[in-house]
């Protein structure tokens, strides 16, 4: 049953991805730009530009280019970047793990801090802890990540010198050959503690900035759900029956509050992937966000399309996972 459901959802995701492809293709081609000029290089003459146009298939009519792009995608090829001439698929394979690592760490921060804080805030509703937490939560959503990132760089890197400013590893450290491409994981797999700590030092600030809106959302939803759940009849009943308070909060109420929290986690995951664009730009984090921005600004659209697809797919998968987790958490969804 679950397998069939997953298959159906994946099929739906496929349809959605096709929609995404169409959308990005349209956007990429509305502009009066000449990618061939970019491909051929700045000093190229007409003959070289025409050569590049042929090389990249840009001389074909749009619908043919579209069909070719879709065909390439079906084979897992994302086309070539006109700015660099490199395969977008290979670039993505290189950048995506970095972004994924960043997002995973940020999401972990969001969960580890957001959920307990939301719980505490609900328990101490309308007390000072709650007020502070709520302002903090709204701030998390209101702080411009690019600005906050700059401030953190200024404070922790430039003035205090505790943490590195940007990048993924020190200039002197040679990045190891990727296993998963996620440095923290790779260094653990290799048992390289020094590398682990170094990459941890580099990921802290960007992950913190990235996690803040997500943390805030989780906190807010978790708080208000906890408030609702703590008021729920079944909590009153469990109290009346003598259940221990901590279990009441941490199991009985939290489990129920986790359902909407889960939904927001799914949403925020997608959102987070999108805001890596800003955070990666600020922290010079070599991931898909930076890749998309620099390509977009250069007018190089194949990478942008590739990133959009990857991030969109990721979002759809995340939603699928959330739906499945819903089933794990909520027995009502499992059977009649």
């Amino acid at each position, binding site marked *: 049953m679950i397998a069939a459901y997953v298959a159906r959802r994946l099929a739906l995701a496929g349809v959605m991805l096709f929609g995404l492809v169409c959308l990005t293709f349209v956007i990429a081609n509305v*502009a*009066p*730009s*000449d*990618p061939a*000029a*970019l491909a*051929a*290089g*700045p*000093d*190229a*003459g*007409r*003959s*070289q530009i025409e*050569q*590049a146009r042929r*090389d990249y298939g840009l001389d074909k009519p749009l619908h043919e280019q579209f069909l070719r792009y879709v065909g390439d995608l079906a084979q897992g090829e994302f086309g070539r*970047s*006109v*700015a*660099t*001439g*490199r395969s977008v698929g290979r670039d993505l394979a*290189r950048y995506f793990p970095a972004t994924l690592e960043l997002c995973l760490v940020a999401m972990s921060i969001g969960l580890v801090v957001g959920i307990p804080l939301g719980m505490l805030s609900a328990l101490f509703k309308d007390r000072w802890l709650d007020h502070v937490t709520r302002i903090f939560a709204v701030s998390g959503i209101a702080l411009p990540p690019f600005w906050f990132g700059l401030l953190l*760089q200024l404070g922790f*890197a*430039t003035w205090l*010198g*505790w*943490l*590195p*400013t*940007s*990048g*993924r590893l*020190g*200039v*002197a*450290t*040679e*990045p190891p050959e990727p296993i998963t491409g996620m440095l923290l994981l790779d260094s653990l797999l290799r048992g390289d*503690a*020094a*590398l682990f*700590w*170094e990459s*941890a*030092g580099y990921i802290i600030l960007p992950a913190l900035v990235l996690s803040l809106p997500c943390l805030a959302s989780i906190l807010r939803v978790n708080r208000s759900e906890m408030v609702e759940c703590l008021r729920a009849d079944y909590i009153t009943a469990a109290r009346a029956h003598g259940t221990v308070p901590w279990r009441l909060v941490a199991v009985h109420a939290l489990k129920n509050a986790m359902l909407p929290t889960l939904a927001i986690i799914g949403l925020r995951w997608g959102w987070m992937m999108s805001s890596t664009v800003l955070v990666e730009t*600020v922290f*010079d984090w*070599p991931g898909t966000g*930076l890749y998309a921005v*620099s390509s*977009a*600004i*250069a*007018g*190089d659209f194949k990478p942008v399309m590739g990133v959009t697809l990857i991030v969109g797919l990721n979002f759809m998968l995340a939603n699928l996972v959330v739906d499945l987790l819903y089933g794990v958490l909520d027995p009502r969804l499992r059977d009649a």
Partner: protein
Amino acid sequence: MNTTRRGILAGAALLAPWQAMGFEREGGRKVLVFSGNQAVPVLDPHVRYDWSTRMIQQGVYDALLKYVGDPPRIVPWLAERYEASADGLTYTFHLAANATFHNGDAVDAEAVRFSFERGLKLNAGIAWMLKDFLKPEKIVAVDARTVRFTLERPFAPFISYVPWWYIVNPKQVLANVSEGDYGRKWLTENAAGSGPFKLRRFDGNSLIHMDTHAAYWKGWPMGEANRLAGAIFRIVREAAPRRAGLQRREIDVITNMSPDDMEQLAKLPGIRNEDHAGFTTFGIKFNCQTGPTADVNLRKAIAHAMDYDALIAIHNGGARLMDSPFPPGMESHISVPGIPRKDLDKAKQYLARSRFPNGDIELEYVHVQGLEDPRRIGLALLDSLRPLNIRLNIVGQPWTTMVARGSKAETAPNMTSVYVTPVGTDPDTVAYQYHRESWGLYYGMSHYENPEVWRMIGEARGMVDKPARLAMYAEIQRRIVADQPEIFGMIPNRTWAMRDYVKGFQFSPIRFTGEVDLYPMWIEA
């Protein structure tokens, strides 16, 4: 596994490692760390060049000749010497006997022939330099150490381009051909050269690590004892961390810093700034065919309203105003008398003579998106044009869009700000931008029209008689200035900041903005 820093890191988790460390070491030798903002997506020397790419290419490859010094000179390199025929059609190069590729293969005439053929046939990157004058079949390996090029017609700048045609090892390339791509795919991230450095690790977006080639056929100028272990090119897109890295001695040389940053860096102990006039010119191209700027008087009015001092001020003094379409230092450059400087009265006189005597027009000023200096110059221009009652619409656009618009006079913006770096020292490199054939290319966005000038440009590039050629170029410069197809702006200085233990830095204006020749550099400590 690399190196000292990691060991320390293992001990002190977060606090220690970003404190001052000193340069990188590997064994007893030092590693030079250079950092800039621009990636190296494709290393293939026949496909792509820009400053960062060419810096690495220059490291791992050799060419027949090499540019050195300021003013730039062309010196023999793989070729010990060359001869040109009197008609300017045939060039014969004699190769050094001891040159070898990194894998030990000799750099022979066939390698040279193959490399030029490859460059021409791929028709990308450097191809434009020689494509119209040299056919692949006219390159002949006379013997193992002699190559002869026969041009289609005389082309004076030929020699000035040869230093950019790097020689690849045909055996390696042919061994790695896929789908008849001339090894293009493989050379994107691999090297098959004979240069002073061997590629150790290539990650074009973050880090390129090269080892010095101990057995480099040309030897090492600083002596074997001081030879580096290698050089690392770190791509750090943001200026602040580059600067921080330099201050913390994680990086030895940085470039692409703003003039303001450079000013601050100059004050720091242990850091030395290199600040030199290059060849890169900044101009604001008028659309000479369509729109208000087709009116030469308006162009002159604008050129006289421009606040040239602001151009210098924006660079904190680190720039020179152009006094000719040609950069100073280029062969045949003259200081053209009467090149516009700020003079509001003159500007108003010209405006009065134009089709817009009262101004009241809005002009579009396009610059490449994300470039800071052209944006600020736009602001300065906007301010300068206010007395003429001309409004300025400052637009940053992606390169692709800008080029697409500039390809036709109908769509080209009124004004486009462009940096142009001449690739060779021959005056034709710059002059040809004003030829009809350059219309629509980014440096030809002004769609400048003057058949007499075109004729002279065309004639000069084939002239063998040097004094006559120089005179011709002097005249060309005067005429172009008179037509004012652009605001001749300034030549920004090229700047690097480096630790003072970095030695052997040699500037040459012919290189691109941040590009340095890593070969002679070493660390003294």
